[in-house]
């Protein structure tokens, strides 16, 4: 465990009725089920772990090649490979009892019924998870959540249905692959979401010029990493203008400056994604250095950063 450098600034943030120790979370699909890299990270220091998307049935995922590095980023098309909700309940939920960090379960489905069924199954058992992040924006499954994520009415209907099932946090994860992310976010808000997280990956493609082959089996995949940070910042800032519920910022965050920028754009918390692949312990480093930043800039609380960007208009 790394030594905590400073405890001066208040890092706590609040979403709904939940208070998180800090705004540094890890993003779904980049941190497995939170149990994979115990040697390299003390997960209890994280603000929250958003676990890998869970579907009703186990999914094998897409054939290889599933990932490729691209300039300042990577494209993935894992295809929601996961153990399915039954094994998640049986094998993962008990593990989370022993963690002090907060667990947010990410759910994916192909129709409203699947999301509903998964959430009902989890709600029917006792668990310590504090909320759900709803994946309505995965670009890598044929009948995936994307049809929800690009449609206001479907987003509203799904959000409302899930709101009826749980009192835990309900976070809708938004896609950047839409013409107007704000209208989707508004639909989620009006239907009872506690927060939105943005952004999921940007649809991308990579080709090998020498072989002429696509570098991803499914041709298109999700672009992530620093390459999409400006896209994420813009979308968070747009959402922040119009939404009153908290926004959790995601998109190529690799250091404390990125965190600060996402919070200044309007994020209450952030999720570290692709950077975990380079270093599963990077969130701890970012947390340590964020504390120093707050101290150096004479901020008493991380929340002072939220929406603090000075725009020119």
């Amino acid at each position, binding site marked *: 465990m790394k030594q905590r450098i400073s405890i001066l600034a208040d890092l706590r943030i609040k979403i709904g009725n939940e208070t998180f120790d800090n705004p540094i979370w890890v993003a779904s699909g980049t941190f497995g089920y939170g149990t994979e890299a115990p040697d390299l990270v003390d997960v209890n220091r994280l603000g929250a772990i958003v676990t890998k998307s869970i579907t009703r049935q186990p999914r094998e*995922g897409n*054939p*290889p090649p*599933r990932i490729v590095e691209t300039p300042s980023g990577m494209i993935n098309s894992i295809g929601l490979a996961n153990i399915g909700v039954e094994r998640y309940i049986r094998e993962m939920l008990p593990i989370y009892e022993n963690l002090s960090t907060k667990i947010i379960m990410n759910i994916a489905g192909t129709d409203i019924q699947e999301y509903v069924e998964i959430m009902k199954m989890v709600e029917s058992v006792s668990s310590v998870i504090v909320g759900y992040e709803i994946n309505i924006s995965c670009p890598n499954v044929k009948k995936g959540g994307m049809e929800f994520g690009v449609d206001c009415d479907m987003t509203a209907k799904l959000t409302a249905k899930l709101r009826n099932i749980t009192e835990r946090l309900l976070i809708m994860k938004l896609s950047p692959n839409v013409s107007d992310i704000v209208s989707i976010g508004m639909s989620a808000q009006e239907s009872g979401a506690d927060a939105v997280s943005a952004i999921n990956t940007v649809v991308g493609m990579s080709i090998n010029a020498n072989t002429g082959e696509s570098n991803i089996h499914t041709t298109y995949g999700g672009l992530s990493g620093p390459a999409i940070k400006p896209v994420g910042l813009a979308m968070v800032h747009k959402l922040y203008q119009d939404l009153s519920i908290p926004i959790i910022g995601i998109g190529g965050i690799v250091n404390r400056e990125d965190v600060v920028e996402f919070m200044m754009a309007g994020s209450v918390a952030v999720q570290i994604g692709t950077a*975990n692949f380079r*270093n599963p312990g990077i969130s701890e480093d970012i947390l340590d250095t964020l504390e120093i930043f707050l101290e150096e800039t004479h901020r008493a609380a991380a929340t002072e950063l939220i929406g603090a960007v000075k725009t020119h208009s």
Partner: protein
Amino acid sequence: MIIERAYIKSNREVANNIWEMHFEAPQIASEYSGSGQFINILVMNAWNHPLRRPMSIASVVKGNISIIYKIFGEVTQLLSEKKVGDEAELMGPLGNTFSNWKNGTYPILVGGGVGLAPILNLKNECDTHHVKYDIIIGARSGDEHFMDHEPEKNIILSTDDGTIGVKGTVMVPLEKMAKENENPYLFACGPEPMLEAVRNFALSNHIPAQLAVESYMGCGVGLCQGCVIHRQNGEIGRHSYHEKYSLVCLDGPIYEAKDIHFG
């Protein structure tokens, strides 16, 4: 498994576009458990190349680890430009090891292209344990070889163009040697077409074989789920919960030939 900043102790081109690098990495060396394991190298701190590069361990001597690599793109180009005394950040040791090579069978080691590292590592382990073996190293041309063709010492080189050793692929000497020896056990690492040929030969002749496979890897520790290979028999491993695919970083990189296929 740890992340360690390691000094580069040597970095040189040992054959045409084949490079060897030594690191001083005592912590990773102390956790190392055998040939087949790999390290995940961060060559540059900047984020224009976000991912580490997995490299098979070619040797571990005291606190030093070596790799063998080819210049393949910008990152390996930068690796080749590293000087003695420079640092690189290594994650490791990762993955499983070759097994059963000292259990009374006759190991035939087969390496080609970038797949030399784990095979040379296994060769050294066989030497250390006084296990007799044959080794076959394949390349396109003689200038890619840095070992000598020494059939009397059971070291066979092959080249596609016949400039050194046996003309043709590694399969030419392999098929002969596998039949000449009792209880052969094949251990192979190299380009996918080579591994596929070794696999097909092993399966059709009922010869056991272990393959060290390559896969495009995102993290090396099971987080990204990117590095899958097709599983053959549907047995669910300790780490991977999938029947159809296996994660090379956790379940591999060494597989019994019968357990996987190349899609």
